């Protein structure tokens, strides 16, 4: 209690001294208004009006035309003259006849403002006045202005350009592949490991666990994982080894059901498909991880395959799987989780290898085309990086700035 009082007193003391200093130094009009002193007559002289006001479309060629940028010159009384400008009122109207409403109250010394959330393309009339706390100056107006509604955001041109180059490459190689050109793809280590792991599980008469990550179906890693799942399901169907697929997303579960059912049908084992083994567990990250840990210890799969998007649960799964004595193969493009899979699993498909694996396994020429396109895009990227370094060294900034997007 005592402390509260002391603090309060100290605060009051500091506040008073600051207040005093402020009044003495600047004769801040706002303070004057709040504490009128009787010996000073009220200010009745309005400050001089601000100088020329200009308004133009903000980000001329980049936005929806709903922002307008305003600049003005300071009032002669702002920081000079009678030195009593407290700030400016910015007025906006849809017609020339009325000043409209105040859209912003700006502090003295400021000469720039961006008015947002306007109706795109509509014409606005702006005016500005200076005020000293009691009086307002005459208004300064400017020509009416309208935001321009743009059809293309030029600051994103580099994105579009590289995108078109990349998609062009992918499509060209896809066409080549369709025509029957042989496309070489290097063998990805770790892919053999998947087959070995499934083989081991069969020998031991124990199930295979396939976790397609906790990403949604719209996550590209999940899609790649489903392609790999189809391959794994065909092997387990042939060996008649149970395949357990726990999922964290309902849509992924339905897609996984379709994929596995189809794979079993294709190898002529439709009856071996057990819908109870494709399970939805929980959307909550650690509830899911906990439940998968339970499966590992209770149903004792001999091979654990983790393919897809994983977050912090990666190590929880991989360490429990190790403790349960399973062979583990992981694959993810989540950079932050790769270290844990690399250390805790027997094999890991790193980063892009996950996508490459899905294309490799499907053996579909069209999918391989995408891989080849990505490779050539990497060549383009390398060239750009080297070029950037060289040009930067030589002092050309424009090139680098082209890559700074909004």
């Amino acid at each position, binding site marked *: 209690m005592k*402390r*509260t009082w002391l*603090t*309060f007193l*100290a*605060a009051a003391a*500091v*506040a008073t001294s*600051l207040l005093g200093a402020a009044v003495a130094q600047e004769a801040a009009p*706002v303070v004057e208004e709040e504490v009128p002193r009787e010996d000073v007559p009220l200010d009745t002289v309005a400050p001089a009006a601000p100088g020329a006001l200009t308004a133009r479309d903000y980000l001329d060629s980049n936005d929806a035309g709903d922002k307008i940028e305003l600049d003005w010159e300071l009032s002669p009384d702002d920081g000079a003259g009678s030195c009593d400008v407290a700030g400016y009122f910015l007025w906006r109207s849809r017609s020339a006849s009325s000043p409209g409403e105040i859209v912003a*109250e700006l*502090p003295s010394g400021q000469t720039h403002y*961006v008015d*947002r959330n306007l109706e795109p393309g509509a014409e606005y009339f702006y005016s500005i006045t200076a005020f000293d706390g009691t009086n307002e100056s005459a208004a300064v107006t400017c020509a009416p202005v309208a935001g321009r509604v743009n059809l293309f955001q030029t600051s994103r041109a580099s994105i579009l350009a590289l995108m078109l180059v990349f998609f062009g490459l992918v499509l060209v190689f896809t066409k080549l592949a369709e025509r029957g050109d042989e496309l070489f793809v290097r063998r990805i280590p770790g892919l053999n490991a998947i087959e070995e792991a499934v083989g081991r599980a069969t020998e031991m008469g124990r199930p295979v666990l396939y976790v397609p990550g906790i990403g949604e179906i719209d996550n590209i890693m999940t899609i790649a994982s489903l392609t790999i799942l189809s391959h794994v399901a065909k092997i387990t169907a042939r060996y008649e080894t149970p395949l357990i697929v726990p999922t964290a997303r309902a849509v992924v579960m339905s897609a996984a059901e379709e994929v596995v059912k189809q794979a079993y049908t294709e190898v002529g084992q439709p009856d071996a498909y057990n819908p109870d083994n494709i399970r939805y567990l929980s959307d909550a990250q650690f509830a899911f991880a906990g439940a998968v840990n339970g499966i590992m210890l209770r149903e004792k799969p001999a091979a654990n395959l983790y393919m897809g998007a994983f977050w912090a649960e990666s190590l929880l799964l991989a360490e429990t799987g190790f*403790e349960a004595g399973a062979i583990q193969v992981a694959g993810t493009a989540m950079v*932050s989780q790769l270290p844990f899979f690399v250390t805790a699993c027997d094999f890991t498909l790193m980063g892009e290898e996950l996508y490459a694996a899905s294309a490799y396994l499907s053996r579909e020429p069209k999918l391989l085309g995408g891989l080849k396109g990505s490779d050539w895009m990497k060549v383009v990227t390398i060239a750009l990086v080297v070029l950037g370094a060289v040009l930067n060294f030589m002092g050309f900034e424009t090139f680098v700035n082209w890559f700074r997007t909004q």
Partner: protein
Amino acid sequence: MNVFEKMLAIDRRWIFLAIGIAVIVPFFFPLGLPVVVTPPVEHLHEAVDRIHPNDAPLLLSIDYAPATLPELEPMAMAILRHAFERDVNVVVMTLHPAGYGLAESALLQAAEEMGQEYGTDFCFLGFQPGTSAVILGMGVNIATVFPEDAYGTPLSEIPMMDGVRNYDEIPLVISLAGWSAAEAWIYYARQPFGQTVGAGVTAVMATDFYPYLSSNQLVGLLGGMRGAAEYEVMIDRMDKGVQGMDSQSIIHIMIIILIFAGNIAYFGARRRKKQEEAEAA
């Protein structure tokens, strides 16, 4: 089985037990290992120090969720204590739907400790959904985004908010977050409005934030529990951050010893095996 093989075959539950003990013991017997303060923390401390007492407020956005509470709450406590000790006014808000209760409890605890008065020294705005829209909107007018505080009082009736319209009247924003909220403050308050922004993030995220420091988009940065510990050292009030550092130091050293032990055992056992094979042949 020789000693190396025994080491390799050790039940990992012994490791778990050792980790458990290493975490619990410093709670009862603190080691008090010295914590060296690094520049990013020092800069944030200075930025809070520059705010005038009982004037324009510090805006503290407590954006963490329960999962990252242990790393980020000590930061919130240290910053709040520092501000309150200097009688700096503080406005607290949250951008995380689960952050409401966490932000409120940290604020009220610090305020009670330091004898601060609601409304005149600090206030709590609560939660608003729509991260980027909230931050952008506050740059224009805080009262349009938060017309009233968390308890239904209009902002105009809160004494300390008098004259506080938007970022122009806020000398510093600090965001404490375990997700992209801290970056959102950089993108939507620092870039368009030139607002001074500081951040406190988890240790995992901290490395991604160093570029913002070097480009001056952040005035200072607290990274993980270590950042909180350093701030506690700066304000000379040790709490959970410094406490945690003891456990952290012990376990980090322990893991390094484990790595070495694992390697010695592995290579020892392998050599032994090779010798045996050579003898057998």
